[in-house]
C-alpha cells in the first residue's frame, strides 16, 4: 500500500530524512517511532505530498506522490500533529467543508459526515464552534476529518497528544478497530502507544531508520539473558546519540 524508496529530505545544511526505505502492506498498522526531531513529521509530510522530497520516491496505493499528487491525496486521510481545524466553524460545518473538498456530494456527503461523527463519538458537540470545545474533542474532530471518504491509507501524526488518559484509551482502541480495513502509519514518541496499537515498528533516529521489525521480532533481537527487554530499553539503546 505504501512504498518508500531511498527518500531523502535536505534543508540547506541539515539532513532531516536520510535515504530511508520501507513498505507497509495493506491493512497493516505500523508504528513510526523516534525521538523528537528525528524526521517523523517530515516523512509523513512527504508521504502526503505536502512537502517535496530532495530525492527518492514514495508511492501510496500504487501512485507516485510527486507525479500523481491528486490520486494520492484521494487515497490518504491525514491527521497532522496539530489538528487542522477552523475555530470559527462548528464541528459539523467543518466536516461538511472537508467532505466537499474530498469530492463527496449530496446524500453520500451527509451519510459520511454522520458516520465519522459517530465513529469518533462527536455527537455531543457537533453543533458547537470548534473554538469552544476541549482539546480532546478538537483532536477527535481532526481524526474524523481524516476518516472522511474512507481513504485506504491513514497517516496519523501523534494522534493522542494532548488527550486525557481516558481519551487516549478511546483513540487507541479506535485505531485498533481500524486494522485490516485501513492501512495506518502512526507516528509517536509514546512507547505504550505502539505496544497498544501496532503490529510493526519502524524506528527512526536522526533521519536514519534504525529498526524495522514486527514487535516480537524486535524484542527477540534485543534480548540479552533471560529477561526480555522492554520497548523502552530497545528504544533508548537504538536512539543513543
Amino acid at each position: 500500500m505504501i512504498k518508500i524508496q531511498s527518500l531523502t529530505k535536505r534543508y540547506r545544511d541539515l539532513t532531516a530524512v536520510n535515504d530511508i526505505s520501507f513498505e507497509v502492506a495493506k491493512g497493516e498498522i505500523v508504528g513510526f517511532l523516534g525521538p523528537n526531531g528525528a524526521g517523523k513529521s517530515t516523512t509523513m509530510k512527504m508521504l502526503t505530498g505536502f512537502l517535496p522530497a530532495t530525492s527518492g520516491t514514495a508511492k501510496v496505493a500504487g501512485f507516485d506522490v510527486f507525479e500523481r499528487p491528486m490520486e494520492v491525496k484521494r487515497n490518504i486521510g491525514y491527521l497532522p500533529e496539530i489538528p487542522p481545524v477552523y475555530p470559527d466553524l462548528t464541528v459539523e460545518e467543518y466536516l461538511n467543508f472537508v467532505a466537499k473538498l474530498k469530492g463527496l456530494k449530496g446524500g453520500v456527503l451527509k451519510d459520511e459526515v454522520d458516520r465519522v461523527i459517530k465513529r469518533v463519538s462527536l455527537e455531543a458537540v457537533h453543533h458547537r464552534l470548534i473554538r469552544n470545545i476541549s482539546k480532546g474533542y478538537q483532536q477527535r474532530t481532526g481524526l474524523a476529518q481524516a476518516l472522511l471518504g474512507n481513504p485506504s491509507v491513514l497517516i496519523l501524526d501523534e494522534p493522542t497528544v494532548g488527550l486525557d488518559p481516558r481519551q487516549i484509551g478511546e483513540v487507541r482502541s479506535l485505531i485498533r478497530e481500524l486494522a485490516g480495513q485501513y492501512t495506518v502509519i502512526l507516528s509517536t514518541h509514546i512507547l505504550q502507544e505502539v505496544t497498544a496499537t501496532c503490529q510493526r515498528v519502524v524506528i527512526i533516529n536522526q533521519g536514519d531508520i534504525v529498526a524495522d521489525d514486527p514487535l516480537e521480532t524486535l524484542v527477540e533481537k534485543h534480548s540479552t539473558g533471560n529477561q526480555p527487554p522492554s520497548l523502552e530499553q530497545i528504544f533508548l539503546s537504538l536512539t543513543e546519540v
Partner: protein
Amino acid sequence: MGNILTIANKELRIYLTTWTSYIIFGAFVLISAFFFQQLVLDYQLRSQEYTQYQYKDMLAQMNLTDWVVAPLLSNVVVFFLFMMPILTMRLFSEERKTKTLQLLMTTPVRPVEIVLGKYVAALCIMLIMLGLSFFFPVLLHIFGATSDGTTPLDWNTITIGYLGMALFGAASVAVGLLTSSLTESQIVAVISSFAILLMLYVIGAAARGQEGVWEQFFQYLSITTHLEGFLRGMIRLPDLVYYLSLSFFGIFLTYQVIEAERWK
C-alpha cells in the same frame, strides 16, 4: 469550479459569523454618512449663495451627481485603502498559523482553486461594503427630486462610478490576498498591503515635478487617477487595463506563492 465555491463559501461563512466584518461595515457606514452629510450641506450652502448673487452660470453647472455622489465616492476610496488590507489579512496568514493550509494542500484541491475561492469571498465582502454606500445616492434620488418630478441624479454616471469603485476594490483585494499569502503573521500582512496601496495612492504626487514621459508614467501608476474617469462617467481602456492587470497580477503571484509551497 465546485471546489472554488466550497472554499469561497467557507470563507464567507467565517467573514459573516465573526465580528471583524461587522465592525468594518459599521465604521464604513458611519464615516460615509458623515461625508455625505457634509457634502449635502456644502451643496445646499453654495446653491443658496449662488441664487442670492444670481450666478446663473454657476447654478447651471451644479448637480448632485458631480457635487455630492462623485466626491463621496472619492472619499470612500480612502476608506477602502485602509480597510481592504484588514479584510484580506487573515485569508492565508491564518491558515498558515493554524496549520489548516496543510489540510487544504493535502485534500484533492488544486492550489489555483484555493486562491480563487478566497479571492471570490473577499470580493463579495468588498461588494457588500460598496453596496452599503449605495444607500446615499438612493436617498438623494428620493428626497432630491425637483418639483416637476425629474430625477436630480445622472444614474449612468453613478453606475459607471460604482463600476470603477468595484474595480478599484478588486485590485486592492488582490494586493491584500498576495501579502496575506506570504506570511503567517496577520499584522505583517496588513502592514505590507497597506504600504503597497498607500504607495500606489501617493505616487501620483510624484508626477507633479516631472515632465513628459515620467509625468505620464507616475500618473499611470497611481491607483486613484484611474478612478477619475469612472467618476465622471467615462470608461477608458487604460483605466480598465490598469485595475484588471493589478488584480490579475495579485492573484497570479499569490497562486505562485501557494504552488511554491509544494517545492520548499
